[in-house]
């Protein structure tokens, strides 16, 4: 899923400071799972922003609305009545949701309430870890299901680099060396031989050539 973090309250307060009627748009998808963008968090943030404004002698009215997913037009359409009343919208959806709002409601400023971080998964309660860089050219079949592009600090493709110490990457952060993990896993599977073949350098062109598109169940071109 898409992992997001809340922006600091100070940032959000500054962003919304000249607004008098603010819509706080929650998303029940990934950002709600992150404990940041659900309706409950939106209500709390709206309350805090109102208190903040009042303590500074300003008047802020807030409205909180949530939809199932902000990254789909039908759901984004549900914001229409509230958008009509708002001077600006503070969205707790990810960057995709924020852009869908901006596209559909061109006259309402869209303010991001979260920082969209990465595609990851839960590794401990409340801890998400990046597992995929969305490169568009997946090599997991060659690497034992462990992504070197994401999990190797240098993103190298025919590793390891030789700098690991005690099983951990030499680049700080305390991550296990991805290439050691790949080696161990391939060996367990009896497939370590795939590493004998030197692969081509990663092709990032598809990852960087503007927005990518994909159809349901469809293959990449």
């Amino acid at each position, binding site marked *: 899923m898409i992992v997001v973090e809340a922006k600091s*309250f100070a940032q959000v*307060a500054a962003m919304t400071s000249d607004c008098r009627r603010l819509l706080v748009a929650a998303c029940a998808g990934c950002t709600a799972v992150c404990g940041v963008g659900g309706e409950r968090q939106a209500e*709390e943030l709206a*309350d805090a922003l*109102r208190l*903040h404004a009042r303590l500074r002698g300003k008047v802020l009215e807030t*409205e909180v609305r949530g939809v199932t997913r902000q990254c789909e037009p039908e759901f984004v359409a549900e914001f229409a009545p509230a958008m009509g009343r*708002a001077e600006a919208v503070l969205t707790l959806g990810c960057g995709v949701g924020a852009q869908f709002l901006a596209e559909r409601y061109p006259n309402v400023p869209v303010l991001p309430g979260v920082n969209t971080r990465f595609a990851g998964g839960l590794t401990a309660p409340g801890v998400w870890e990046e597992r995929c860089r969305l490169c568009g050219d997946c090599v997991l079949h060659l690497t034992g299901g462990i992504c070197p592009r994401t999990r190797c600090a240098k993103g190298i493709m025919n590793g390891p680099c030789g700098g690991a110490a005690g099983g951990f990457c030499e680049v700080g952060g305390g991550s296990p060396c991805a290439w050691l993990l790949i080696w161990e896993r391939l060996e367990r599977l009896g497939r370590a031989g795939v590493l004998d073949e030197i692969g081509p350098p990663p092709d990032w062109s598809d990852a960087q050539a503007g927005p990518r598109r994909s159809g349901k169940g469809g293959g990449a071109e």
Partner: protein
Amino acid sequence: MNTDPRIISFCCYNCAYAAADLAGAMRVSYDPRVTIVGVPCTGAMEAVVVLGAFEEGADGVFVAGCLDGECHYKEGNLRARERVARLRERLSEVGLEPERLEMYQVSAAMGARFGEIAAEFVDRIKALPPSPLRRGAAVKGGMSR
């Protein structure tokens, strides 16, 4: 200095509310400006309820739940404690003194302790200025909810 503090206390029915009841039966007196609101479990008490109390002009809010390990819903009191800690940070971000919010833990048998808590908290709030949100028209809930 606040001579007429308005204090809201959210008390769990299973312990703190019962303790407050016992305090009454024991003739332990505490400031009548502590308004007790019973809640089924402090763990179920949403952050917006606490912030709402401040928005309505409360000078102080205390949440009272069961002792560690004695919550009827296992960990509701621990969650409440975390939530209160987080909300205190939020209060200071917003511009209110974090001391205006506190979490206490008592058992149903601690009537006298409840009286002490109430007195302590009232003294603390009296030492602060009145809440700046107390006067003026309430800017309520929002455009439609």
